[in-house]
């Protein structure tokens, strides 16, 4: 529950941050517009005043006064300042009581906090131009910047009107997304709880939107499929282990029991014990093989891999097995003329291939053939072990690599049935595929590595 609330808060927080960013950006745009427009306006007013003062400064007193009077009269909004000072600084005419603190140079100056004409209450910025008349008096023209401030208010008013709905919209969208995400997460959480309670068939909901949650859900579902598969396998393996261990133990126990009860002579007892020992050994071999598989699975990873030559390994295996093949009247041949280079664990690769050869020799009848091949085909390292034995029917080919699978070939049992499982485990560890095909007649096991290009790709990814 905490997680959901946190995520909901998180989604909403993102929306708030987004809204804030939009507000700042929009305000900045409005501020810029206002700044540009107001600056232009101030400049325009200034330029106008400079022009007018330049024109009016040379007029006669009479004409100037008329013109100024007219100006005040026309200025309904009372924004214009006009004043005529004599040479001593006394006000001759106009609506400005005292000379503002600006130089008398005929240029536009900004004066802040100047009271409006005909009003003592409000003081605002204004632009003034003062120019000296030929008689030593001063003509003062000015205009309040009230209009510019009014523009500012308009601009910010518009901003507020535009911004409020945007922010609200973003927050609403954020809330919708947050609640949708939290609803999905709640469903996922419920499914996980179901799975934890034993419903291994349950899967996380996928919406097909390919968003982040969906990707995670899909990955988790794939993981669950794999776990399910392994569990199924484990279940059947468990049954098989029980069988494989129980039967030799039961036999050993029976033999010892019989030896104790009925063994009249020391020789009888000795024979019973030897029999029992052989069955215990069988159980020990099974355990050792199981440990071996888990050792391989949990053992070396790429870091212990080295460059090795599968052809050389095959040659070594050929040398080890040739006398055995000969003794069984089997023709063992090898074809590995060129180095077959891969990265891997030397001991494990040797073990995997030798399990295949061991198996092939065991199931090939006298006067049969077993052939070992190693080569690089289409950029992929390949090792093949083919025999002329009874082969494996197509429907059995998948099962043959399962742990403890024992397939009666030609009436002969495949030993403890773990050799091929070990080989497959080792192959998987190296990114190899172990498959079995028909050799017409016989079986052909093939270890095939990934091609160099995909290996390079993997290396680049990791």
């Amino acid at each position, binding site marked *: 529950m905490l997680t959901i609330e946190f995520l909901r808060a998180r989604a909403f927080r993102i929306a708030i941050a987004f809204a804030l960013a939009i507000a700042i950006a929009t305000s900045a745009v409005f501020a810029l517009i206002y700044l540009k427009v107001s600056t232009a306006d101030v400049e325009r007013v200034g330029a106008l005043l400079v022009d007018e003062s330049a024109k009016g400064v040379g007029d006669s007193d009479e004409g100037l006064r008329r013109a100024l009077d007219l100006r005040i009269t026309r200025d309904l909004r009372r924004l214009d300042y006009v004043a005529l000072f004599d040479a001593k600084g006394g006000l001759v005419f106009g609506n400005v009581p005292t000379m503002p603190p600006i130089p008398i140079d005929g240029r536009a100056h900004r004066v802040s906090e100047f009271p409006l004409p005909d009003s003592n209450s409000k003081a605002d910025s204004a632009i003034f131009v003062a120019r000296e008349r030929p008689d030593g008096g001063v003509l003062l023209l000015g205009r309040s910047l009230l209009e510019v401030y009014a523009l500012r208010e308009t601009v910010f008013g518009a901003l507020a009107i535009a911004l409020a709905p945007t922010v609200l919209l973003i927050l609403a969208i954020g809330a919708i997304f947050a609640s949708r995400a939290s609803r999905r997460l709640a469903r996922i959480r419920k499914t996980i709880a179901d799975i934890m309670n034993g419903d291994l068939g349950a899967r996380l909901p996928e919406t097909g939107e390919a968003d982040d949650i969906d990707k995670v859900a899909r990955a988790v579902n794939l993981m669950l499929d794999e776990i399910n598969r392994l569990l199924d396998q484990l279940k059947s393996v468990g049954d098989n282990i029980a069988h494989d261990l129980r039967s030799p133990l039961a036999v050993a126990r029976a033999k010892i029991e019989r030896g104790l009860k009925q063994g009249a002579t020391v020789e009888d007892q000795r024979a019973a014990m030897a029999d029992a020992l052989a069955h215990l050994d069988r159980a020990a071999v099974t355990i050792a093989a199981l440990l071996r598989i888990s050792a391989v699975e949990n053992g070396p990873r790429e870091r*212990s891999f080295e460059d090795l030559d599968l052809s050389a390994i095959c040659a070594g295996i050929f040398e*080890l097995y040739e006398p055995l093949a000969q003794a069984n009247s089997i023709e063992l041949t090898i074809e590995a003329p060129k180095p077959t280079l891969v990265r891997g664990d030397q001991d494990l690769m*040797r073990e995997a291939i030798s399990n295949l050869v061991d198996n092939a*020799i065991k199931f090939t009848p006298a006067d049969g053939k077993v052939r070992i091949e190693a080569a690089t085909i289409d950029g992929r390292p390949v090792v093949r072990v083919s025999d002329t034995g009874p082969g494996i029917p197509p429907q059995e080919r998948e099962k043959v690599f399962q742990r403890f699978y024992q397939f009666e070939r030609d009436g002969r049992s495949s030993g403890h049935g773990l*050799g091929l499982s070990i080989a497959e485990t080792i192959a998987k560890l190296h990114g190899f595929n172990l498959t079995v095909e028909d050799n017409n007649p016989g079986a052909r096991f093939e270890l095939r590595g990934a091609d160099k290009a995909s290996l390079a790709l993997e290396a680049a990814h990791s």
Partner: protein
Amino acid sequence: MKPPVLVIEDEHDLAEEICFELQASGHVVRLAETWEEGLRAARAGGVSVMVLDRMLHGEDGLTIIERLRGEGNSTPVLVISALSSVDDRIRGLKAGGDDYLVKPFELRELTARVEALSRRITDTRATRLRAGPLEMDLVERTVRRGERLVDLLPREFKLLEYFMRRPNQIVTRAMLLEDVWNFKFLPQTNVVDVHISNLRRKIDEGGEARLIVNVRAAGFKLHVDD
């Protein structure tokens, strides 16, 4: 009288069996059942070989080897362990162990390896090996039994050399696979036996006495008069 073998093993039943088996093969055995006891006994010295369980009541037995090696004690150690991954094995040997045996093992295998360690080959530079009627020239790559020249394939030569360096000593199939063929696992078939019987056919001709004999439930032995 050979110096004793020190067995450091906390599992009482297994320890008892190991001691019994080693004694049956003519060894004097000392037993230590805890980590501290083991270290003390090893430091006391006068031991030919140590058999050390990796897990001693939750303590890593390898630290005993590391301590001993740090103190300049180079008594050969056979490490026995239920940890069988390649990494564990490498770690065991890196820590200074001389051989590594994974549980479950046959007691004869253990005895054979203890004996191999107690008679470690001191002179590896010898160019001629002699064992009973057999004589091997490592430079010329020739083998004679008495006067007769025995013609061997390279792999048979390698195999016989291994036996001649360990006369009258039990050699197990696992030891042969490991040391001669560099195979660190046991194949299911009797692949080693076939090699041995091929080698036998060449070195024992006609009415000559069998030199490489089978040792029941353990392996083989090059049986010669010293």
